[in-house]
């Protein structure tokens, strides 16, 4: 059995070397396909980055009446935290709010002077409520902020809550959430499309390559070779093509992400594709290896199958 595997592997490697021109077409198509497939992975990365950025920006800011006690605020904070749909509730005291305001307007003397004239702290305490990540892929599903806003709008909280910023920025929040959902939805569609394209391209190329061996496969069968003994070397060729396609694809992706990073960072508010590639290198490598080698081996086995009936 070991001898059989050795012969199949050796024969496959020799065939690969001798038919390099034909096999290089398969490698090229596979490399393009894997690169397209990986670009869908990058779209997903971009989505996650934007989604996180949006999540950091969205949220409901609740401003309390000046006379509201810290205990009441902390009690509400606890009640909110007990809800299942809330990721975090950040309390900003009057003092912190004043300090932030001063820091923000440190360059504007007139505002700072006005604060001195007013005497005391005119800024209210507030809390910032951030909902749990919304993973729904289908646009138009329930928005968690609607529910949270409804909760805060209850009569029992009206004596302590002065205003909520959610209503002011509601349309922006909704459009940002919908945008990130749309990107993920598109990413999924693009990924499925690329997978289909890759499979079709590789199968067509391999089929054409194997077709040129149609008569030779027939001869192999007529001298008594088993189906696996005929099929094996073609699968080894697929394996080698898959490995090389993965290597070339990774080099290509590395170069493209390296040189495009400044532009992509500028238009995506900070998404660094080269760093993302580096951080996810092994994930991408194994995904490509599994897809590239798997498809190439399977395509070869399938293409040979139709000529085995001799």
């Amino acid at each position, binding site marked *: 059995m070991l*001898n059989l595997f050795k012969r199949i592997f050796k024969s496959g490697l*020799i065939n690969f070397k001798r038919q390099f021109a034909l096999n290089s077409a398969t490698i090229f198509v596979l490399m393009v396909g894997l690169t397209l497939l990986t670009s869908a992975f990058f779209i997903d990365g971009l989505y996650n980055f934007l989604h996180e950025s949006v999540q950091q920006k969205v949220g409901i800011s609740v401003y309390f009446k000046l006379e509201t006690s810290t205990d009441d605020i902390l009690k509400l904070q606890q009640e909110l935290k007990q809800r299942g749909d809330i990721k975090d509730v950040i309390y900003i005291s009057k003092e912190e709010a004043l300090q932030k305001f001063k820091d923000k307007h440190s360059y504007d003397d007139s505002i700072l002077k006005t604060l001195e004239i007013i005497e005391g702290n005119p800024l209210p305490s507030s809390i910032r409520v951030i909902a749990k990540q919304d993973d729904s892929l289908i646009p138009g599903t329930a928005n968690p902020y609607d529910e949270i806003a409804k909760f805060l709008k209850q009569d029992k909280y009206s004596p302590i809550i002065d205003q909520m910023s959610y209503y002011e920025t509601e349309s922006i929040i909704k459009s940002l959430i919908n945008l990130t959902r749309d990107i993920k939805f598109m990413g999924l569609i693009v990924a499925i499309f690329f997978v289909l394209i890759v499979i079709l391209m590789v199968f067509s190329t391999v089929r054409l390559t194997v077709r040129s061996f149609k*008569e*030779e496969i027939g*001869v192999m069968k007529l001298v*008594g070779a088993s189906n696996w003994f005929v099929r094996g070397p073609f699968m080894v060729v697929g394996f080698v093509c898959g490995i090389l396609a993965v290597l070339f694809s990774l080099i290509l992706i590395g170069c493209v992400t390296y040189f495009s990073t400044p532009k992509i960072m500028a238009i995506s508010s900070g998404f660094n594709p080269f760093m993302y590639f580096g951080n996810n290198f092994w994930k991408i490598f194994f995904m490509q290896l599994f897809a590239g080698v798997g498809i190439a081996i399977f395509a070869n086995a399938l293409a040979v199958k139709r000529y085995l009936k*001799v």
Partner: protein
Amino acid sequence: MISFKNVTKIYNPNTLALDNISFDIKEGEFVLIVGKSGAGKTTLMKLITKEEEPTQGEVVVNGLNLNIADENALNSLRRMTGTVFQDFRLINHKNVFENISYSMEVVGADDSEIKRDVPDVLEMVGLKEKFHSFPKQLSGGEKQRVAIARALIHRPKLILADEPTGNLDVYSIRDILDALLKVNQMGATIILATHNQSVVNFLQKRVITLENGKIIRDQEKGKFIL
């Protein structure tokens, strides 16, 4: 060893290649199949390896009814058969050594056996210098000799040779026929299809004559009759 029972082969749409033929070949026999081009010689050979299937009737080889033979049984039958195809059918991406050793690899021969036997058989067919040549670098006669070497290398029990001398010179024909006679004396069954009169007359073996797909003569120690 081989039994044809009322075998008819019709190629689509209406080409009758063999017309209800029946005959038996015993183990160890040397049988010549003769006839004009298109008489059905090659079709008959193809039916023995199940490269073609009969339209009617049945072919039994070494006790195996080819109409119902499964994949494994058919592979085993082909491994004990050495076939010289009329059109050589060498594997183009393999060199001479690899083409011949492939038959041995298929039957599971060791590497040491392959290294020992392939040079011997190449010497026998006069191609020792063409070890690393590819089929496209060989002449018609050289290809034919490689095909003969491939058919003989694994010491098959049955040898099917379809016009094996068609591209050979007189001296080479004699060498090949001597080799086939020797293999036959060692017990192999040989079926040789030819339209070469001198080959038939030289061998003095059983001759089955085909004409328009029918057997018109079956003679022990026959001669070529026009």
